[in-house]
């Protein structure tokens, strides 16, 4: 599982995985074996590099629900930072680009399976209205209309597996009233 860490002006690319019960943290590409146990409801005992450190985690609300805010208290003080799923970051920025470009063709932003189709050809949709759900990376990704538009053509059907950038739905933007 990957996360982008942001603390102050710094960002780091992190990954954590569990193999045969053992945890490994990857910090900007460097693999670090991690011995971590939850000892109390919000409190962890970590032994990393033989150092034993107790960490208490508070979740901090952020404006963006995809940006997970944390406050970690240690013996040497508190650390405030956020963790974000880099895929979501990627998707969000791709969507923002697609929207700005105003293009009428919705493409799959990552490989996945069409789980649900909410529209049919000829229908008009409002900005933000759900178009389809693409299952990718164990997540249900809901694609919404980037503008008020008419559904001109549907290139997929439910259950279809898509490659990255596969065309999904062609939209024709409606003029603002």
């Amino acid at each position: 599982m990957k996360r982008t860490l942001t603390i102050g002006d710094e960002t780091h690319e992190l990954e954590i995985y569990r193999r045969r019960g053992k945890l490994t943290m990857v910090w900007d590409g460097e693999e670090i074996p991690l011995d971590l146990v939850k000892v109390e409801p919000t409190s962890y005992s970590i032994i990393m590099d033989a150092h034993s450190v107790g960490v208490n985690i508070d979740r901090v609300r952020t404006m963006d629900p995809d940006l997970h805010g944390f406050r970690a208290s240690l013996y040497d003080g508190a650390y405030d930072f956020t963790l974000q799923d880099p895929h979501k970051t990627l998707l969000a920025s791709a969507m923002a680009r697609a929207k700005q470009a105003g293009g009428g063709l919705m493409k799959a932003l990552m490989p996945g399976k069409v789980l649900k189709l909410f529209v049919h050809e000829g229908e008009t949709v409002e900005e933000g209205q759900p178009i389809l759900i693409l299952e990718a990376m164990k997540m249900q990704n809901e694609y919404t209309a980037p503008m008020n538009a008419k559904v001109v053509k549907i290139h997929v059907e439910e259950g279809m597996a898509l490659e990255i950038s596969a065309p999904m739905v062609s939209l024709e933007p409606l003029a603002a009233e």
Partner: protein
Amino acid sequence: MPVTKLLIANRGEVACRILRTCREMEIPTVAVYSDSDRGAMHVRLAVNSYPIGPTPSRESYMRVDKIVDVAKLSGADAVHPGYGFFAEDPEAARKIIDAGLTWIGPSVEVLEKMGDKVVARGIAQRVGVPVLPAVYEVNDDEALVAKAAELGFPLMVKPVLGRDGKGMRMVRTAGELRRALPRVKGEAIFSFWDERVYLEKALVNPHHVEVQIAADAHGNYVYLWERDGSLQRRFQQVAEEAPSPFVTPELRSKLGEAALAIAKEINYVGIGSVEFLLDDDKNFYFLEMTCRLQGGHAVTEWITGEDLVRWQISIARGEKLPLTQEQIPLWGHAFQCRINAEDPDKDFAPSSGTLNYLRTPAGRNIRNDSGVYYGWEMSPYYAPLISKLSAWGPNRELALARMHAALSEYRIGGVRNNVAFHKALTEHKPVLKGEYCTNVFRHAWWKQRGIGPNLKYAVAAALFEELEMEERRAQQPSTDASVEAWKRHNKINRL
């Protein structure tokens, strides 16, 4: 006067602290609580507990009439006001006494005299204790500005009926004084129903030292050494220690004798603190007298081994002081930190919320006076105090080392807090050397610079929480039917 069942007209840490002495003395206790304090620690520890109204303290804890009603209802024959609220209000004391209850505190007359800071100055002068030059004859703004020039800047503007540092301001120029006067007067009216102010010459690098005194109804007076209260921010103490590292043995006796002279002049009965400002040359000036148990009394209890609440109760009962001046011990050194739910990096803004984690320090010679517990909701209506943490050592160096180690163990979740600030305080050179005065917090030297060395540990725990969440998510079936469920649980990416 009897004290067979004691009503504690307070909440939080001080209520719990008084309760504990009552348990030792086997005096049944009566707690009172506002609406938001039903589950508070003082309610849980008391023998009897009664509701006294809405959350704002003016509608509950400050309501003397309700306190008297509860005393009657519960059969309590004595009232301990703790500190804050109406502890130093002569009107409150009068109502308690008129209701036939024992008031754990000095007399109404003493509270009236010492509550008026100008009268108190006069009493000190009468017994030969120095005071700082002041202007108090006039209350007109322009007259005060004119007089201020004679006094010389910097000077303090203070409410005549002030206490607890409320409303006080320091001014350096006539312009600052002009701007300060309406504000100080406004705060004085709001807090004390009296707009009179006075000006007092300000010292440049003052030391704030308070002498703990006690007196019984039989004319016995003792002082229990001093506390150094110079570690203050906006005239509020954030930490204190006893004895003061600035006070020599000779000065200690002089201050003690001066404090007792004032206490004797007003026939003080009870415990109280006589506060002094000291300049760099160790000249001392009477500032005011605090006529109640003080928030810093724990350090005095450490170095004397005595229990000041027990003293208060036994004095109120008309008993003689348990020790003479020669018998008062001076045993080692003690330091206290006030642990608050506040953000030291954001001008100490109070933080409210649920204490979702609490690990308090333990071990040798550590004392943690608290009114909170794991899961308690810190209310924005009351002082954001989490606990008063104190540590004793056979000498100052060991007391500080112990406090520093204790702070490293202290862990609080759910609210911002000043534990790291206090840790920085116990590493701060002037504090380690014992060479500090009241301006110690003028610069924000305690602010964390950059990112600490344990970032990877801090992040690892959060990353693990994210992993666990993902793993739980992955265990859920991803069938068509589950889409709605996913939506319900917000586990869907909206693109």
